[in-house]
């Protein structure tokens, strides 16, 4: 429909020129009326609800024919005030909020926040080995599930539907493992200040080993399907180019930075959670384009598989070891148990506090209602999430709640590169460029 008036403009907003409202099945009339005017410049508002924008991302594209002359992002559609809400909950409850930010990599959100809290508590060296190994295990499994979605949705957005279906098929296997270990498929709140919420359930190591065996067969399928696929390469190669200087200036990290050939990976450069004890390689590529980022993600899944394998071996020797810090003033008092209806109360613990020990009951009550106090100060412990440097700036005023928790989310920062990656290219390449950044809007908007 072509009108002189913009029905969607807010009152008081001037609308200039002609307005095209696309409602479906009216492309002919639109192109016809565009053709009548001599002006070729069109501003397209793409999103926030669009299947190809990788979430509720709004793109404002200025087009000249099919060439993008200007690209801008509109974000904030998924802003839920998680950081503000965390200021009104205890330190432990904070994990329940921050796990929901970047919903494709929940363990990383929890981990960076928890590492910050642990630094302020000065208990970094007291975290039991098993808790650290379990954190690494879960984070690396999570890296695989996140990269699988990145590849799957990236494929879907350019029309490679098989890539999507097999990507989600494998991700499902990872989510099954999460469900087995944490009780939840997403939003786990499993990594807690002082350790992890509970021990590995029986049989988990066998499931993990089966998964590793299966993935070793499945991962080559992606390579066979995509690596040398001429259509796939034609769409990805040379698209979304950003060199090293551009990455550093715009603060890009993760696969985008590594696709320039620079092996910057916080797991190697500033190890946390005992990453220095694992044998793995930092994956790089030298083309600085979307294809390189795809290959890096694929290769990183292999490396994650290697780390998961090493974690499984180490966990086999740590049976029965503690998963929570020994300090009873910090450690969550109960170990939850998985019942027939999912994760819930541990009957042993309830018997102990209700029937056996008054002190244990008081202690439980105090820790659960009041929580622990964190000495005043601030900490920032960034980690390498699947998308790059994810860090939580945690500030405490000495109270039982975070005074401020700010998350430096890599999706938020990396999305700033949209314009430099896509201006001057084709409209269809904007989609590829954004898919190669792999922004998760839950993390961008928080």
């Amino acid at each position, binding site marked *: 429909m072509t009108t002189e008036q913009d029905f969607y403009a807010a009152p008081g907003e001037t609308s200039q020129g002609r307005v095209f409202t696309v409602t479906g099945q009216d492309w002919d009339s639109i192109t016809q009326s565009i053709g009548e005017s001599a002006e070729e410049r069109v501003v397209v508002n793409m999103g926030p609800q669009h299947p190809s924008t990788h979430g509720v991302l709004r793109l404002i594209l200025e087009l000249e024919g099919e060439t993008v002359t200007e690209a801008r992002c509109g*974000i*904030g559609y998924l*802003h839920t*005030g998680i*950081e*503000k*809400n965390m*200021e*009104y*909950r205890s330190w432990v409850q904070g994990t329940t909020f921050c796990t929901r930010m970047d919903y494709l990599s929940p363990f990383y959100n929890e981990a960076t926040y928890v590492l910050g809290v642990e*630094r*302020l508590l*000065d208990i970094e060296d007291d975290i039991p080995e098993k808790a650290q190994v379990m954190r690494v295990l879960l984070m690396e499994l999570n890296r695989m599930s996140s990269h699988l979605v990145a590849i799957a949705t990236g494929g879907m957005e350019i029309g490679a539907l098989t890539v999507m279906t097999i990507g989600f098929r494998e991700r499902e296997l990872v989510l099954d493992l999460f469900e087995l270990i944490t009780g939840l498929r997403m939003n786990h709140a499993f990594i807690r200040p002082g350790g992890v919420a509970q021990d590995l359930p029986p049989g988990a190591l066998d499931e993990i080993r089966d998964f590793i065996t299966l993935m070793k067969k499945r991962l080559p399928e992606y390579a066979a399907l995509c690596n040398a696929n001429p259509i796939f390469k034609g769409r990805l190669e040379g698209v979304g180019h950003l060199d090293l200087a551009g990455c*550093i*200036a*715009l*603060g*890009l990290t993760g696969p985008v930075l590594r696709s320039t050939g620079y092996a*910057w990976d916080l797991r190697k*450069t*500033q190890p946390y959670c005992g990453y220095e004890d694992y044998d793995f390689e930092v994956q790089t590529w030298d083309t600085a384009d979307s294809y390189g980022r795809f290959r890096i993600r694929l290769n990183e899944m292999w490396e994650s598989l290697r780390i998961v394998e090493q974690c499984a071996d180490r966990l086999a020797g740590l049976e029965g070891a503690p998963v929570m810090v020994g300090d009873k003033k910090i450690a969550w008092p109960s170990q939850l148990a998985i019942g027939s209806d999912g994760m819930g109360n541990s009957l042993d613990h309830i018997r102990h506090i209700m029937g056996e020990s008054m002190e244990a009951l008081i202690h439980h009550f*105090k820790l659960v*209602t*009041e*929580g622990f*106090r964190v*000495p*005043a*100060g*601030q*900490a*920032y412990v*960034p980690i390498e999430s699947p998308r790059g*440097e994810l*860090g939580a*700036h945690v*500030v405490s*005023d*000495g*109270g*039982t*709640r975070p*005074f*401020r928790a*700010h998350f*430096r989310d890599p999706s*938020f*920062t990396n*999305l*700033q590169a949209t314009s430099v990656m896509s201006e001057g290219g084709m409209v269809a390449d904007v989609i590829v460029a954004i898919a190669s950044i792999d922004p998760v809007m839950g993390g961008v*908007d*928080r």
Partner: protein
Amino acid sequence: MTDKPDEKPDEKAAGKAQDESDDKTDANESARPAEERNLEKAKSETGTGSGVEQPAPEQSPENLPAPTGEVRAVGERHGMFGVSGTGDTSGYGGLVSATVFPAPSQKPYGGWFDEVAGALEARLEATELTSAIESVVVHRGEITFHVRREDLPFVAQMLRDDEALRFEFCSGVSGVHYPEDTGRELHAVYHLTSMTHNRRIRLEVTAPDSDPHVPSLVSIYPTLDWHERETYDMFGLIFDGHPALTRVLMPDDWPGHPQRKDYPLGGIPVEYKGGSIPPPDQRRSYN
């Protein structure tokens, strides 16, 4: 603490219950102004109370630098339950404890901290901007440079370009609102990384609520574009020199800046089976 005239009403109520019981045991005490006694009582409670005491900032490990002795106290925490007017008769509502942040450190800071601080100082002395760094805090293995706000762009430029410093990567800016830190309520905190030397430092600048301006660093670290917009959006900190300082997460016409401490969390009571649970910021809870 004793010369604090505007004591909150809930403390008075809580203190009154104690006064009455005290009057029986110590008649002389009642001759003194009630308010003074309350505060003394509160002080002694903070001193001896076990679970509620604010622990002193830990600087004990041998490799950490000694604090200068001056303490950076920012505000006070009153009571124990965070919420007033709930009919607290336990007396815990009268607790007063200072909020003490880690004190500035003295040299040597230890490890590469001294190299960075030394290089920074040398460069600043060469340009006669010696007072650009207000203080240096080393806490939990992280170093924070408190920078005078008008000198922030110069310091950042130097940190980025100087060969010995080379902090070429900025992780963004995070705002913090300390309503009780009078004259410096708004803090902007920058995390810088030197990929060359594999080091990480923190810069902190402050601005009063009455003049919420901080120079923009977008020309030095372009990545700060959205980060500064977010901090403006959430705290109302105006970054002078930013190319287009508009809201980024909240709608353009949103009133107020949500992350400020004087901005309420909001929420409605939840009713369940006849009971009503107030929204999180009005619930009775520990503080």
